[in-house]
């Protein structure tokens, strides 16, 4: 597939760019093999690969609790959820590959620490209540973002997002169900649920990224339909849904400034962006552990890859011999 990635120095760039933007304006999807600006491709690879890495690293905080799940039902749910995250990573690596970057190169960037992934996964999961809270708040925030991305202009990315959203809806609901169950439970269970919400609320709000005024890529991403809503808009949707639900459950939102304005929007207090940039910069509570765990998993899986290759080579030889 000879992909065509346009540079501003190309003689026909402005003509083709106009056609490309008109297609996006008509709501058409851009598909692999179609002409696209090199900058569109670059931004998509950056976003999709970060997103893929987030799914892969996202298995770690929850995977740590599989063998400590309190019941068989919760354990089966959690196993299915963690397996979903692995699948989501693969959907996304595939979507990025349609833009001419290899999965191996992306994985190497992750394992070497060069690539970024969502900072939320650099926080620790301290109690079982964190598992429900991650489903409800972290996946809840992810769905808001992913529903927005599902409407985006690049076909393979939007298809991956539609599939992922359908599965994330299960993650979100099982988490909400678990937290609400604890909220109605014993004093100790209520405390656990509240403690988990206290620790995850603010990192969840940071998941949508910096405020619109501080988001340098937003203009071009919006013009080319990669992002269809701004960070602050998506954050507001998340708060409007989750803040009243938490309050309804008899739990507290850990934000003394939280209030509803006259339009019905729930307005949050100041976000600690210093913390956000610290975690992005590699100084979060779990950055080092997460990367070490990924590298260990990769190294310990080497014998499986080697066995598969040996078997495939044998098959190949047998076919040639026939």
């Amino acid at each position, binding site marked *: 597939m000879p992909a065509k990635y346009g540079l501003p120095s190309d003689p026909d760039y402005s003509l083709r760019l106009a056609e490309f933007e008109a297609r996006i304006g008509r709501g058409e999807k851009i598909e692999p093999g179609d002409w696209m600006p090199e900058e569109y491709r670059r931004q998509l690879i950056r976003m999709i690969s970060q997103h893929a890495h987030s799914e892969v690293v996202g298995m770690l905080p929850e995977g740590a609790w599989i063998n400590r799940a309190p019941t068989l039902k919760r354990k089966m749910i959690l196993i299915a959820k963690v397996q979903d995250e692995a699948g989501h990573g693969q959907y996304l690596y595939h979507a990025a590959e349609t833009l001419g970057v290899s999965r191996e190169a992306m994985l190497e960037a992750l394992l070497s620490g060069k690539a970024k992934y969502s900072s939320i996964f650099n926080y620790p999961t301290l109690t079982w209540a964190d598992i429900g809270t991650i489903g409800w708040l972290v996946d809840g925030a992810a769905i808001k973002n992913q529903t927005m991305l599902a409407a985006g202009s690049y076909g393979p990315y939007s298809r991956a997002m539609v599939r992922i*959203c359908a599965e994330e809806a299960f993650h979100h609901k099982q988490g909400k*169900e678990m937290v*609400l169950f604890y909220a109605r439970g014993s004093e100790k269970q209520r405390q656990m649920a509240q403690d988990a919400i206290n620790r995850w609320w603010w990192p969840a709000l940071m998941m949508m990224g910096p405020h619109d005024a501080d988001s340098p890529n937003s203009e071009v991403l919006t013009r080319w339909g990669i992002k269809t809503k701004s960070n602050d808009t998506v954050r507001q949707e998340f708060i409007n849904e989750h803040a009243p639900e938490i309050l309804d459950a008899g739990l507290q939102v850990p934000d003394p400034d939280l209030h509803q304005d006259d339009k019905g929007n729930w307005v949050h207090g100041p976000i600690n962006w210093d913390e956000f940039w610290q975690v992005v910069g590699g100084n979060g509570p779990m950055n080092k552990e997460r990367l070490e765990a990924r590298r260990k998993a990769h190294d310990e899986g080497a014998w499986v890859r080697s066995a598969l*290759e040996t*078997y495939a080579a044998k*098959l190949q030889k047998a076919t040639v011999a026939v």
Partner: protein
Amino acid sequence: MDTQWPRWEVFKQDTPAKPHQAVGSVHAADPQHALLTARNIFARRPQAISMWVVRAEDIFSWTKEELAENPPPEAAKQTEPLAYGFQPLTFCVFRKTSHKRSMTFVDYVGEVSASSPEDALKQAQQQFGDVEALAWWIVPTDRLAKSDPGSETVESWFAPATDKTYKQQQYYATIGSHVSKHKLGRETDDEE
């Protein structure tokens, strides 16, 4: 060590009434590995009854744009005359006809017999030209690996996706205050 492996395109058939559709790709060392990985990635939830895989390098593809700029060489170069025992090859033809929504795919439309991929494209354009194609994929039929159509395999591969209700969001639908109560409006894309 190489962790890349060849890339395989995956075609999933949801129901007998639907065509096989290109849903994405996997990396695998051999055809069976590719089919199993495809099952684990693309049919953990959604309905499916059959899957095909083919190595990406065995797909000949043309977009409408590419065909407009570089028409394929006229009439296939038939290297051997029929009299000397030339056997035409069978090719599977896949076509994408819409870029309007996200959940549109390169769909299987049928088979043609041809002397080369270019010849197969020409025949595909004649036989399946009823709707304008935005992209054509031509695959030598013998390069496709298919999931076993036997009912036992179909059952064990694809039923768990829909049978395990705790993995479905509907299972949790009535818990707590319904989200719609708090929503100020939300856009959704077409669901699978």
